[in-house]
């Protein structure tokens, strides 16, 4: 069995999981313009953008001897639920017959979930599987922890391109991890590297924090969302996003970790009581959560053609008004022009700065 998988966020983690289980893997390419063109060409026009990027990712790997693709299914009533099957069909019509292992939420069909796990387990012992899953889980926690520091600090360090290169190096270090002990060592080293950069934290009332919400693929994959976190950092604002891999694992796989998700769901209650598919309910819950945590603005990312996020988008005006927090909604697809995105994000952050400055002025006057 020669396996590959989609490219999304810290892809090295899926690679590590399968590698430690003893599989022969092919690392997918980071989506490029070529990937996207290829995917758009071979996808139904009305499929949402992530479908097209995945299509392109798979097609780029054909000819490398892959026979199995491992991917995840959808969340609730969202079209992503049958995307795996559709990818398989399109690949087969192009002459590539592959096996797809599609992981849905275990609670939906536990028997099938278990069968798939057994297939990936192959000859390893259950003890080994548990150990590997734990290592990978801890690794994702560690990467996410470091990344949150990166997306805060990068707003203030002066040599941002060197900082970016350092972050790339750190990720390379992570990809070499084999044991639990390695994780803590790599993490320590990473913090050391990051702390070498001088930065000046502005006074608390001048710090700008932006939360990114929306569909998981466009939120998590920088090559698809035009490196939006980097852009926000470059305009001098800190950023956090609603989806991190470790959080996703907590939500879907870890048995006793659902508490935080439930809390986020609860926060969405005033606007959206049911799951309408994708991560729409989380998106709304996270806006409330960010507001409570003192964030200054929200950027909503919606892949063009995404139905759940289209519904979220239609609620944003009201939420923004109710909570008194600016929200910028951006639609992402192959037509997204970089210049246009920069214009909107820069203006958005400028306006937040102006408002903060005027609030501060008024406070001084009142005192």
């Amino acid at each position, binding site marked *: 069995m020669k396996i590959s998988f989609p490219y999304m966020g810290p892809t090295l983690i899926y690679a590590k999981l399968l590698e430690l289980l003893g599989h022969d893997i092919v690392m997918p390419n980071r989506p490029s313009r070529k990937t996207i063109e290829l995917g758009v060409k071979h996808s139904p026009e009305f499929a949402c953008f992530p479908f097209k990027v995945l299509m392109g990712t798979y097609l780029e790997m054909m000819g490398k001897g892959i026979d199995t693709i491992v991917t995840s299914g959808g969340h609730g009533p969202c079209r992503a639920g049958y995307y795996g099957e559709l990818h398989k069909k399109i690949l087969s019509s192009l002459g590539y017959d592959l096996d797809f292992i599609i992981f849905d939420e275990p609670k939906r069909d536990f028997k099938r979930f278990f069968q798939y796990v057994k297939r990936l387990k192959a000859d390893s012992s259950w003890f080994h599987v548990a150990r590997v899953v734990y290592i990978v889980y801890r690794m994702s926690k560690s990467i996410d922890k470091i990344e949150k520091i990166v997306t805060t600090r990068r707003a203030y360090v002066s040599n941002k391109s060197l900082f970016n290169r350092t972050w790339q190096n750190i990720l390379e270090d992570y990809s070499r991890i084999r044991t639990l002990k390695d994780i803590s060592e790599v993490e320590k080293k990473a913090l050391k590297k990051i702390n070498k950069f001088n930065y000046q934290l502005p006074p608390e009332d001048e710090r700008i924090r932006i939360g990114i919400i929306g569909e998981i693929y466009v939120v998590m994959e920088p090559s698809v969302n035009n490196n939006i976190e980097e852009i926000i950092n470059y305009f001098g604002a800190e950023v956090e996003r609603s989806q991190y891999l470790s959080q996703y694992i907590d939500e879907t796989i870890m048995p006793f970790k659902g508490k935080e998700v439930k809390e986020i769901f609860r926060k969405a209650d005033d606007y959206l009581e049911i799951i309408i598919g994708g991560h729409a309910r989380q998106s709304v819950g996270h806006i409330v959560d960010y507001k409570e945590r003192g964030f200054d603005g929200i950027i909503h990312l919606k892949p063009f053609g995404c139905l759940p996020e289209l519904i979220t988008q239609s609620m944003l005006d009201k939420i923004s008004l109710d909570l008194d927090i600016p929200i910028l909604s951006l639609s992402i697809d192959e037509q997204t022009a*970089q210049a246009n995105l920069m214009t909107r994000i820069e203006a958005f952050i400028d306006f937040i700065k102006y408002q903060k400055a005027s609030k501060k002025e008024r406070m001084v006057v009142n005192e």
Partner: protein
Amino acid sequence: MNSIYVGVDIGSVSINIIAIDANNELIFKLYRRNTGQPVEIVKEALNELKKNLKDMQEVAGVGVTGSGRKLIGYILGADIIKNEITAHAAATTYYYPETGTIFEIGGQDSKLIIVNNGIPVDFAMNTVCAAGTGSFLDHQALRLGVPIEEFGALALKARRDVRIAGRCTVFAESDMISKQQYGFTKPEIIKGLCRALVRNYMNNLVRGRKLSGKYIFQGGVAANIGIKAAFEEELSHEVIIPEHYDVMGAIGIAMLVKEEIESKGIKTSFRGFNITRDNFVTSSFICEGCANECEVIKVESSTEVIAMTGDRCGKWSDSVENQISYRQETFAR
């Protein structure tokens, strides 16, 4: 020496260059159609400005805005390169501190800016296509054989109302052709178009937001009194068109650069008027150094490489000595 500040707005349809003095008074203004050679137009405009400068006047800062801001910014050695939304808001809130709503309709963009107590708080920008912007009107004027300058005034002569489908330029055109065949006059068709444009604007940008006065209407399309009338009818409220409605973006960026230079007490990075005698070449290539595959843009004068930009890691941009680093210009997919 008396300091003046130059603002340049490189739009898709027009290029505007203005200069203000230390008291924010407009001392130079030039509005040109963008014929696709912005560098040449900017050079001409700089020569014009130089001729107009009095003794003791000296350029103390240059700011560039508009969709073509990046390249021209590097060539001029601008002190600020900034988006047009912020620039427009800066100028309008200066002239009209009590503004509530700014409508800005340009060649291919339309914007809505909401202002509260003199602070811009929210904006929207057309997302889908250019139907409902200047280019659309330009095209229809051409088709009707009416000079664009007379287009708006003609709308006021209409005696009947006709509804034109304005969501998409192509469909608007076929609708116009059929309405012409029904016997509607040119003024009536034009009035229908103006109302379609405003309707489009309300549906796409305002989207149920609560607007409040004063209403300021600016951008190239504000020259069209037919649109102004249609806005006033829609809002049942007076709409104000600023004196320099067509160059507000350029004025705004000049004000922002003035603020930046004065508050930080820095010297301008403007390359000087000599650049009008130089030639500039831009080229681009895909860097294959890593999986990012950044598109790198290179700007050269006849003697040196002025700027390289677009690389995320700094491999190329760091290689250019004395490159002005604009925070916003270092990304690629």
